[in-house]
């Protein structure tokens, strides 16, 4: 085709397009504009310019005359204010939990190493501490982000919280400075101080971290169970607002939960390092680290349901309707999802322990029991995950004679669920006991009697827990609620008593098999990562129920949510948001892991032999 014709056609098309856009804009702009007539035409100014000036002046005058009214809400684009605050708050909490938990077990491991003189413990504690500094920065960054979001999106609510808690802010900030001081001197001072001084830094770090958490918990728990204020929300007693109904239960629950969560993330780090390890020595080290992280996580996880009971009991104590909404109302199905998560955690934790037996010679005496343990876990898991009522069609409901299944419906109540979870904990404890005993043969004269006593305690407590569960079906509610206390107490007693007997019985035990750290299939490490993901997801879910329980209240019963997001979303929506949070968290934590691993890489431009930090620091150099 003739190029001139082509150019001419392109110009025509462009002009046509321009014209179309102009016409479209003119049609779109249909708002009424009053005609502007200039009252005084400035010398030299064209009438149109003068009109534009007049409009600007009128707008300015109008803006000046407008009375200032502080906004109650602002809106976050696309996802909305609630989802934005939800995601950032949960990410802040996850990093905060990790930063508070890691120093706890780093300190304890360092302390063990100090007393037993085994340098491996010191190295392990340092390895954990390496994850801290970047995580601390992320915690603070997400904390700052959350604060700005609250001020920006919920100004009236933020103002109210300031009215109640402003007196806690300065101590909080001071503690944060102290936390930074202790944390960085603990990490950078590894091997540079006398061991006792370094341990003191670790202790200080933990105490201050716990103090920070206690202050922040008062704000969150006040929103759910406010105290110290009048019916209309006026502050009467600042300390009662701080020490409200659920403050201490949340402190305890978070304290234990943080350790479980932090242990699982540290174990995931070790698993990731194990999977990428180049030598048997590295594999052995990271296998041990993963084992220790998981041990910390599961040890803290076992008493966590008991702390949960305490928290739930206080929620019921504060307001029965709130408690019933949680366990029997709109949120009750959330606990079925929780049962799936916790069931998976128990299954995975036990599976890891059973796989771990493979690294020890002399595992045969205990391996034959694994199938029974698995059966017990599966049954308990199934009972726990049984819903009270099930989704069914009209014909199915007719066939069942109601929404409750004639047989399985009995398993969906708290009597059965409490019994199942206590048996699940006992089973996991027995798995751990078997793992601990593998490759060891007691030499004490009373070993036989010790075994019988341990078995009797286990059998007696299991029977007691099941009997109380059955008894719960035949008594009225006031009595039934109280039955969970002896169930919990007896399980705790069994674990403590059996551990004490075991510790004395295995004193001076003969080693029948060597432990080969690192000789574990790779699947075991993926199990550790799965445990970490499940813990994180569980934390997101429980964070949602604690916050969502307030429903259409910013502060329950005191300050109503009048925003667009005042409704409680479906559980399906909540799980989508939780998954987004979990994936974002793991993206950030992968960055933390990568940064920590840089520590062991050779310097840029070096010949590959001069590694820095990792091999020359106090942790390896025997500074302690």
């Amino acid at each position, binding site marked *: 085709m003739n190029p001139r014709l082509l150019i001419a056609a392109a110009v025509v098309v462009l002009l046509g397009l321009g014209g179309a856009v102009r016409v479209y804009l003119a049609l779109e702009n249909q708002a009424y504009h009053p005609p502007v007539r200039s009252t005084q035409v400035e010398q030299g100014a064209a009438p149109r310019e003068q009109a534009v000036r007049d409009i600007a002046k009128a707008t300015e005058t109008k803006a000046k005359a407008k009375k200032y009214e502080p906004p109650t809400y602002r809106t976050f684009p696309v996802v909305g204010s609630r989802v934005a605050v939800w995601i950032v708050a949960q990410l802040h909490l996850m990093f905060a939990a990790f930063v508070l938990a890691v120093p706890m077990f780093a300190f304890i491991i360092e302390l063990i190493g100090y007393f037993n003189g085994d340098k491996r413990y010191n190295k392990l504690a340092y390895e954990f501490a390496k994850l801290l500094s970047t995580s601390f920065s992320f915690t603070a960054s997400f904390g700052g982000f959350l604060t700005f979001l609250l001020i920006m999106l919920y100004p009236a609510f933020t103002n109210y919280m300031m009215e109640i808690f402003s007196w806690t802010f300065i101590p909080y900030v001071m503690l944060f400075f102290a936390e930074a001081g202790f944390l960085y001197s603990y990490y950078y001072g590894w091997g540079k101080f006398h061991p006792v001084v370094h341990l003191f830094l670790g202790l200080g770090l933990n105490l201050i971290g716990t103090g920070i958490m206690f202050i922040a918990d008062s704000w969150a728990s006040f929103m759910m169970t406010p105290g110290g204020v009048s*019916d209309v929300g006026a502050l009467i007693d600042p300390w009662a607002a701080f020490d409200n109904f659920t403050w201490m239960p949340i402190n305890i629950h978070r304290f234990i939960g943080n350790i479980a969560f932090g242990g699982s993330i540290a174990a995931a780090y070790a698993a*990731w390092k194990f*999977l*990428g390890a180049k030598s048997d020595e590295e594999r052995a080290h990271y296998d041990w680290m993963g084992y220790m992280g998981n041990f910390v996580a599961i040890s803290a996880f076992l008493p966590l349901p008991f702390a949960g009971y305490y928290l739930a009991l206080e929620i*019921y104590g504060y*307001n*029965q*309707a709130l408690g*019933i*909404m949680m366990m*029997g*109302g*709109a949120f009750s*199905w*959330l606990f*079925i*999802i929780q049962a*799936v*998560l916790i069931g998976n955690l128990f299954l995975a934790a036990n599976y890891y322990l059973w796989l771990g037996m493979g690294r020890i010679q002399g595992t045969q005496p205990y391996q034959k029991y694994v199938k029974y343990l698995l059966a017990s876990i599966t049954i308990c898991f199934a009972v726990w995950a049984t*819903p009270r009522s099930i*989704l069914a069609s009209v014909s199915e409901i007719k066939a069942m004679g109601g929404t409750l299944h004639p047989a399985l419906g009995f398993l969906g*109540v708290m009597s059965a669920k409490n019994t199942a979870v206590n048996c699940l904990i006992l089973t996991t404890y027995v798995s751990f006991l078997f793992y601990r005993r593998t490759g060891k043969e007691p030499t004490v004269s009373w070993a036989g009697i010790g075994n019988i006593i341990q078995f009797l305690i286990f059998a007696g407590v299991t029977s007691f827990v099941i009997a109380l569960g059955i008894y719960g*079906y*035949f*008594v*009225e*509610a*006031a009595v*039934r*609620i109280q039955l969970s206390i002896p169930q919990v107490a007896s399980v705790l007693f069994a674990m403590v008593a059996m551990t004490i007997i075991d510790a004395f019985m295995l004193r001076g035990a003969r080693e029948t098999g060597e432990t080969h750290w690192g000789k574990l299939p790779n699947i075991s490490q*993926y199990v550790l*990562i*799965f445990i970490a*993901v*499940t813990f994180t*997801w569980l934390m997101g879910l429980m964070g949602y129920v604690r916050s969502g329980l307030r*429903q*259409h*209240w910013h502060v*329950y*019963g*005191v300050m*109503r*949510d009048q925003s667009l997001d*005042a*409704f*409680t*979303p*479906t*559980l*399906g929506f*909540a*799980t*989508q948001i*939780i*998954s987004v949070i*979990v*994936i974002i968290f*793991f993206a950030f934590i992968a960055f933390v892991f990568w940064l920590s691993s840089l520590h062991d890489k050779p310097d840029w431009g070096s010949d590959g032999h001069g590694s820095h930090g990792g091999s020359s620091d106090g942790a390896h150099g025997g500074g302690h």
Partner: protein
Amino acid sequence: MKMPVSLNVVLLVVGSSLFYTYVGQLVPQKQLMPPAEVLIAADLTTDQMVKVGFEVVQQKGLCLTCHTVGKGGAGLRFPDLAGIGDRAKSRKPGMDDVHYLAESLYHPDVYIVPGFNPGMPVINKPPIGLTDTEILCVIAWLQSLGGTPSVTMTTKLPDQTQG
């Protein structure tokens, strides 16, 4: 073909999260809206009050979160309301049904039904915060459960604060 470790880990994290999200889609999906305000005209008849009262009980009052109607047995956490209209007449000696029901709403801890624990919130205070008129309608509905509603919009109760 051997997959790189990092890809396996990403698949595990995303896959596990998707699995739990899927579990979340399997449970009943209910969106809870803030309780709607029930408009109450000043000239309602007692029969109309019963209907309005039932609406309040279901929505703003959240009464059926804890109480049941017509469900017997030992498993109840709070008293079943079936027949309350009849029982209320003789529950406390010297107190008629309207005043007994009013007391149990305004001062729920004064009398606890044997076999149950205290736990009922003060119904005219937040977070429930029913108005005096709404409470009158709730009393009318409670009376209708096994009894004959006698309360009217002009009935005066000792704890009424509004006009």
